[in-house]
């Protein structure tokens, strides 16, 4: 390729590069910079605050901040339950679709994707109202079976959010797994059938190993999203602030520190910590699943 042509090619990427510097690199750098400073009240607090370099003090505080650590643990624990359940349902549905004629499968696929079309905030609003003891149909339904459930009780709030996320996510994950299934060579099934393998057996020993890549990927995307969960608990907090506290998830802690406590420096340090946790979790997950695949 001619030299001048290369540079013209590079020119196509210049607007993005500039934007990336201003909207990604500088903000991240600024957050790291801010995280190294602290505000100090001078004198009697009358002279206003001054910023002083404090090294890693904000990080030390973050690593011993029980509200922050609890929020991370809470979300990780929740992820360990909700993500496998959601992916298992998605996998089952994808296997079901794969076993049907493509015409029937196409119809069901569209129906199952409907929740994915609903914006996350609206999905949360709808489920909060379904759960609501005043307007929701679930409370009278429970009474029919002799159940009195309160979806906003402390022990129920995670299952309630988990059901909302599962409802919202199975369609999307199912489509990804289903497209991976479509790529499995059909000859394999014929061979297995000739050997007398049953259909569930074929699904378990041929299809599932083939879509392991898709499962790892959807799992990874779900973990990244889960560690940053904010919208759903924020909406739950709107109707049940006594069970969903202001430090319910890591991002809520950060938001609260920045905008309610006005402590940007500390909030910046916490968001850097969260980024590191996110990177570590993705790396561990990847290593763990990659090793199993060998």
């Amino acid at each position, binding site marked *: 390729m001619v030299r001048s042509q290369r540079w013209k090619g590079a020119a196509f990427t210049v607007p993005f590069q500039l934007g990336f510097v201003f909207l990604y690199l500088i903000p991240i750098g600024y957050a790291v910079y801010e995280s190294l400073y602290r505000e100090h009240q001078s004198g009697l607090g009358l002279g206003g605050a001054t910023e002083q370099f404090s090294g890693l003090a904000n990080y030390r505080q973050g690593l011993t901040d029980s509200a922050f650590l609890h929020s991370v643990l809470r979300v990780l624990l929740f992820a360990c339950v909700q993500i496998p359940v959601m992916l298992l349902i998605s996998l089952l549905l994808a296997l079901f679709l794969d076993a049907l004629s493509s015409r029937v499968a196409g119809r069901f696929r569209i129906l199952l994707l409907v929740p994915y079309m609903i914006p996350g905030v609206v999905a949360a609003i709808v489920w909060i109202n379904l759960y609501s003891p005043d307007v929701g149909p679930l409370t009278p339904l429970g009474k029919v079976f002799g159940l009195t459930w309160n979806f906003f009780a402390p022990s129920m709030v995670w299952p309630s959010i988990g059901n909302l996320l599962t409802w919202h996510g199975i369609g999307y994950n199912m489509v990804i797994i289903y497209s991976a299934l479509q790529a499995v060579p059909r000859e394999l099934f014929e061979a297995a059938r000739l050997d007398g393998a049953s259909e569930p057996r074929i699904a378990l020993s041929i299809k599932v190993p083939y879509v392991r890549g898709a499962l790892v990927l959807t799992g990874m995307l779900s973990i990244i999203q889960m560690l940053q969960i904010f919208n759903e608990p*924020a909406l739950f907090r709107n109707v049940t602030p006594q069970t969903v506290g202001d430090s319910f998830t890591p991002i809520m802690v950060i938001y609260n520190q920045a905008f309610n406590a006005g402590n940007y420096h500390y909030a910046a340090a916490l968001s850097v910590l969260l980024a590191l946790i996110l990177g570590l979790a993705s790396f561990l997950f990847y290593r763990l699943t990659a090793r199993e695949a060998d």
Partner: protein
Amino acid sequence: MTLTEERRPASPVRRLTRPDPASRSRGGQRFLLLGLVLASAYSLFPVWWLLVAATKNRTDLYQSNGLWFSGMHLWSNLRQLFTYEHGIFLRWTANSFLYAGVGSLGGTLIALATGYGLARFDFPGRGAVFACVVGSFLVPIALLTLPLYLLFSKIGLVDTPWAMLIPCLINPFSVYLAKVYTESTVPYEILEAARIDGAGELRIFITIVLRMMTTGGATVFLLAFVNTWNAFFLPLTVLRGEENWTLNLGLYNWTGKRLESGVDLTSLVLTGALLSIVPMAVMMVAMRRYWRTGVTLGALK
């Protein structure tokens, strides 16, 4: 890297050997259908409930069976929604369209140019740019949004439409999609032929490449639009006054009114929630072909 979605029609053999399967036993087939019907019912009933709830007046909302109609009050609900606080809901709708429409259009153009540059030119630093694109997938929103808020407030952009529009212009995921699309749809030979004919690089991009990438561009735009329409953390952080809010932000605020000030806006919230789905549904149905490839492409991330 291939697109499963586009590859599928290319293997008609498989279609002939299908309805293979599981279906040999009738019972097995019924079991599968039952499972799928139940899953579909689970997926659809909340949407159905929302549709029914939007047609009820306040008394029936609280007292009648939630899964069936009781009187038809959709129009009066809509009138109430559009006139509440001097039509603030319409304002939010317009804002959502502005941010999602204009922001995604600009973002898509930038992404297509970048994707094309990355896919079809070998310039120094190309690897670094691509590494930035992929690396940014792991950056949590809080790490970007908080400092962005501080920087925007220093230059007076907080609480203006620009605070929403500018971040939408740079979307690494769109760039990634655009690069993958260019690789699969724009052959080197055509570019070479155009160059031999003496066309300039910019002209090649505008008259040839953009035209070949209509499908890819539509997918990128669609996904960016949906993303911006659904955004919540960014608008919550950078928009203060309610005249600049998005639909999501407005509905969020209304759901909190009941505990905050005792005003029960449930009926308005539900009608508004239903309306905010409509543009999504229309876009997704109208662009179904593009959207499907987009969903599966997302998998290759």
